[in-house]
């Protein structure tokens, strides 16, 4: 077991554990915090896979911006653990079974799937570096990139319009 494998298992356990905590925490704020932990774990995976740019962006955008946004919303609408609505028990069980069987079925379906390389190359190349991604982004993908700015603008307008008191 070398260091990358250790890192992989460690990060995977953290990710799954914190993800479970997200859906089981009574307090929504805790859910948010656990989700941030999950994102950090996923970012760790990115770093292990030498996708450094995405790792950083994931932390900045998801953990930094989006999750803070969630917290802000909680602050705005002032939810507490004791007012948190709970699904009735049967639906919870049904949901758990459904999700679990979805996982089982998908794993079963993909277990023996024939993929041309059985290995995700770790630390073997540098396509995930900012320089390479950036060059590709601003040459081949420059139009989608610019279009995404329009998307942001419209999302911003949409959020303002929705959030405005009428």
């Amino acid at each position, binding site marked *: 077991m070398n260091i990358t494998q250790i890192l992989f298992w460690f990060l995977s356990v953290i990710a799954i554990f914190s993800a479970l905590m997200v859906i089981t925490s009574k307090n929504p704020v805790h859910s948010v915090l656990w989700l941030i932990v999950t994102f950090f774990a996923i970012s760790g995976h990115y770093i292990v896979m030498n996708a450094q740019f995405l790792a950083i962006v994931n932390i900045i955008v998801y953990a930094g911006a989006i999750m803070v946004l969630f917290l802000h919303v909680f602050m705005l609408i002032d939810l507490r653990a004791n007012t948190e609505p709970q699904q009735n028990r049967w639906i919870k069980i049904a949901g758990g079974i459904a999700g679990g069987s979805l996982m089982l079925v998908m794993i079963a379906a993909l277990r023996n799937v024939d993929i041309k390389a*059985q290995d995700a190359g770790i630390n073997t190349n540098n396509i995930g570096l900012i320089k390479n991604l950036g060059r590709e982004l601003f040459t081949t993908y420059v139009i989608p990139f610019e279009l995404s700015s329009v998307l942001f603008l419209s999302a911003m307008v949409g959020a303002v319009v929705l959030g405005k008191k009428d």
Partner: protein
Amino acid sequence: MPINYYIFLAIALFSIGVVGVLTRRNAIIIFMCIELMLNSVNLLLVAFSKMHHLAAGATPTTGIDGQLFVFFIMVVAAAEVSVGLAIIVMMYRNIHSVDVNFLNRLKH
């Protein structure tokens, strides 16, 4: 690392997200679970991107599309979150709750 490990990890995270959506009533938590599902897909995409690069290996940019795809998913997710949270805030303002069980007007 074998690609299957990443696949199973992604499936596990995704299924946790699904279970979250199914079992919680708080709209914001459901929303967070959706983000979790998106992230599991992102993870898988990055893993595939690396795998693809390793398998082809010919040119330095093979497989880079996968990572750019993740980038764009993040872009869209960010936009989606801003609008989605605005909708939730508005919903709270109207029905003073973020409980999706109160949102059964689709029935009519």
